[in-house]
């Protein structure tokens, strides 16, 4: 039986992180992919902070996460909890626990949404406490609350320029990542793409670190109008142009969808699925963070749609929100143009909503909600991918719901190649072999589509290759092959050559 104390239980509340500590304290963060993390590090440094990125979570982290927090966590909670605890433990071994609590603070995103995401900190806190690191300072950045000073102190001044920096960092790295995945499967010199990407991200790091400072509102105009970022992206485009590619390698395109963390990270938390698919002969169509944020905007604005005609001012707010969303999308398109329009465009949120509507209500939030269903249908109907690889975390709440609704979609479109993979962190063989079976089908489809393209154009593979050899610009990674009737890159190239030859592809 427990002994009574007069002190009631109170939730963890960290000591504030003050401005005076700024030079001696390092802000730790993580949970995304390395490109965007590196750039956000630059943004924090540009704002006068010291910053460090957590290493990519590993299987050991998963085990630690399961051990130190309450049972029944979703797989991303286990990975991220263990990741943080092991990182802090390691630092404590080096510096001593007291020193670590003085020298580091951890920053993580929160949410006011329906799933467990906004409660991660509860597991982090428990994990740290169970590891004897209860005094460590951890701060939750609420997505819906810009002024964080009251909660965390003024050590990290998360002002408008910094927020915009993070946003632009996400845009730029999304674009780089997208192009990278279009190029690597076709590179002639192995490793060339990785080298260019690394160089490009370091270049972006410098650009963001040295970003001119503007005060609050002027900063918005500057970010939207300056050629600072477009120039940087053009330079990256130029770096990519040095890569030689062979786009006649027939590969299925695999769209990654799923829960936010799992579709974003690249490492053990999702069985290194991006690299695994590439090694298995696929071209990966990665999930952009910008798409997720566009979805959040749409979701937020739907509230005003509901209140239109019921509450005064709702229509006005909806209008203003739509303008903001249009600016968001215009800006992404502007930056994309600087990359030769090569990375994929942002899918239209209204189209995704319309496609998903018969199967999943657009008001249901948590996870990707109806977007998960919409993206699968969009990829299929708009010929964006041969196959959808859906990353579904073990014990996730919203994701299981959307995937369940996919049963209705597949009933109507049994031809969609859809691979929902339950990611547990340690049941890799099972998940990957399932994926491989569907990938085999996707490969057959890509090949069939390619053969049909050749037949329709009356060309042979050798004929197309000879044509490309004669036009070396077509071998550049930055050569734009129009997305025609086909899904796959190779088949689209055949159609394109046929058109250039004046044949109907």
């Amino acid at each position: 039986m427990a002994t009574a104390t007069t002190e009631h239980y109170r939730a963890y509340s960290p000591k504030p992180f003050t401005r005076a500590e700024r030079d001696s304290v390092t802000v730790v963060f993580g949970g995304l992919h390395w490109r965007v993390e590196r750039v956000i590090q630059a943004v924090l440094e540009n704002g006068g902070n010291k910053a460090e990125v957590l290493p990519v979570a590993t299987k050991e982290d998963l085990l630690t996460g399961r051990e130190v927090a309450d049972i029944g966590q979703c797989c991303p909670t286990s990975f991220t909890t263990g990741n943080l605890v092991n990182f802090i433990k390691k630092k404590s071994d080096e510096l001593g626990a007291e020193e670590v609590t003085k020298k580091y603070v951890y920053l993580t995103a929160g949410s006011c949404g329906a799933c467990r995401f906004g409660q991660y900190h509860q597991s982090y806190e428990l994990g740290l406490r169970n590891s004897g690191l209860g005094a460590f300072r951890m701060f939750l950045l609420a997505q819906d609350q810009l002024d964080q000073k009251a909660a965390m102190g003024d050590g990290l001044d998360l002002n408008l320029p910094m927020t915009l920096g993070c946003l632009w960092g996400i845009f730029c790295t999304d674009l780089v990542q997208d192009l990278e995945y279009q190029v690597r499967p076709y590179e002639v010199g192995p490793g060339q793409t990785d080298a260019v990407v690394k160089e490009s991200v370091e270049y972006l790091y410098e650009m963001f670190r040295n970003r001119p400072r503007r005060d609050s509102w002027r900063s918005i105009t500057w970010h939207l109008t300056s050629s600072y970022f477009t120039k940087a992206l053009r330079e990256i485009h130029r770096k990519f142009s040095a890569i030689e590619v062979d786009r006649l390698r027939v590969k299925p395109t695999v769209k990654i969808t799923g829960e936010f963390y799992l579709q974003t990270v690249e490492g053990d938390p999702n069985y290194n699925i991006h690299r695994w698919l590439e090694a298995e002969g696929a071209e990966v169509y990665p999930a952009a963070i910008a798409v997720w944020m566009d979805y959040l905007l749409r979701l937020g604005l739907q509230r005003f749609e509901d209140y239109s005609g019921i509450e005064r001012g709702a229509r006005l707010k909806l209008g203003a929100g739509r303008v903001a969303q249009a600016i968001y999308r215009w800006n992404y398109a502007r930056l994309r143009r600087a990359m030769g329009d090569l990375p994929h465009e942002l899918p239209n949120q209204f189209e995704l909503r319309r496609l998903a509507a018969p199967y999943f209500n657009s008001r249901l939030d948590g996870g990707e909600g109806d977007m998960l269903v919409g993206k699968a249908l969009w990829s299929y109907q708009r010929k964006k991918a041969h196959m959808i690889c859906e990353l579904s975390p073990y014990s996730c709440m919203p994701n299981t719901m959307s995937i369940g609704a996919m049963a209705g979609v597949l009933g109507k479109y049994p031809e969609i190649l859809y691979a929902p993979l339950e990611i547990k962190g340690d049941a890799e063989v099972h998940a990957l072999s399932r994926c491989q079976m569907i990938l085999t089908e996707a490969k057959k489809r890509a090949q069939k589509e390619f053969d049909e393209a050749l037949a329709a154009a009356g060309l042979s593979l050798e004929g197309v290759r000879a044509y490309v050899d004669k036009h070396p610009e077509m071998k550049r990674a930055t050569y734009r092959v129009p997305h025609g009737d086909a899904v796959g890159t190779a088949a689209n190239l055949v159609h394109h050559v046929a058109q250039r030859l004046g044949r109907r592809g």
Partner: protein
Amino acid sequence: MPRVLNMWSTHQFWCGLFGALGIDRRNLVFSADTSEEQGRQFGKGRGTVDCCYPVKCIAGHYGELVFGQREKLDIVFSPMIYTVPSMLSGHVARTLTCPRVMAAPENIKGGFIKERDVFVEQGIRYVTPFVSLDEPKLVAKQLFEGGLREAIPGLTPSEMARAVEAGFLALRAFNNSLRKKSREVLEWCARENRACLLVLARPYHMDPGIGHEIEGDLQAYGYPVLWAQYFPTDPDLLEWAFGEDLRAGIIKSPFDIHDVWPSSYSANTNEILWGAKVAARIPWVACVVRLSSYECGMDQPTYTPVQQIVERSGTLFFSFQDLDSTKPAGSVKIRVETITHYLEKYAAAIIEKKKAAMPPGCPLPSQAAEKGPSASLAPSTAGST
């Protein structure tokens, strides 16, 4: 209507609403309580994903409605309940339901349309409006546009609005009557200096197939059982329980749970946390029983804080987690015996200790007060509906 999830805390709203729309109560059919047999007979092969037990069971309820009714049904009404009214409005941020609760009707539908549309085949209209019950301004529009306009020919928006009002009135009246009964139980406990138990669970754990009738078994031993969702919210009692924290600026209202749970956005979770706080302060709540379903994601982060809040005060705490992962009948029996054993042994001491820790001025009648007839009401007053 399937008798599932948050229909358990809102069914009076729906009865009130349809009543006001002129639908005879006898024409409102609920599926039976959850049972394994129901799932086997009607839900088999229609589950779409592996998920928590309460959601998984819905396929059985739908199946029962579609295939198991002797009378022909016209409509299966299964709202997607996005938010629920909560007694904790004010200093909790949101009143959202679990993402699985809100999306279950869409998810389970998948299993009924994947091969062929079973609803169409059976001549049943499937109506599943999205509804934010904690935003009364929206509800009529959501229901009207979300399927009731087509389902009830001739329905007008103003009729809908009136029906919604009637629904809320019915729900409020029902909740208040249960809270009043809980108050009577507490008063009886205070008078007799007897212990009661508080159940911390989600409303649908009142379904015997989901909650496994644990509270019923406990009641059989003569301990009154209260549910946190129907705990009295009378200002005098809350002032006594939380006044000190309020004056110390730790909380902003008796319903503020920020001191123990900074992420208040899910109504049922908030209520569980609040229930734990109440249990820690009310002396006669000598024991807390926590119920959690198999694979419940919402409960996971709350296990430790809830247990700590309760145990710090010296109150007994028993948790039944993953209730459905194995057939629990045997283990439940053993645990119920353990709980009652501890209660017999320690309840009196717990009550005394907790009383000593509380400020004077308890509004519940003291031992000296006159004994009233409501004492006899106590053992039969579980919050089950």
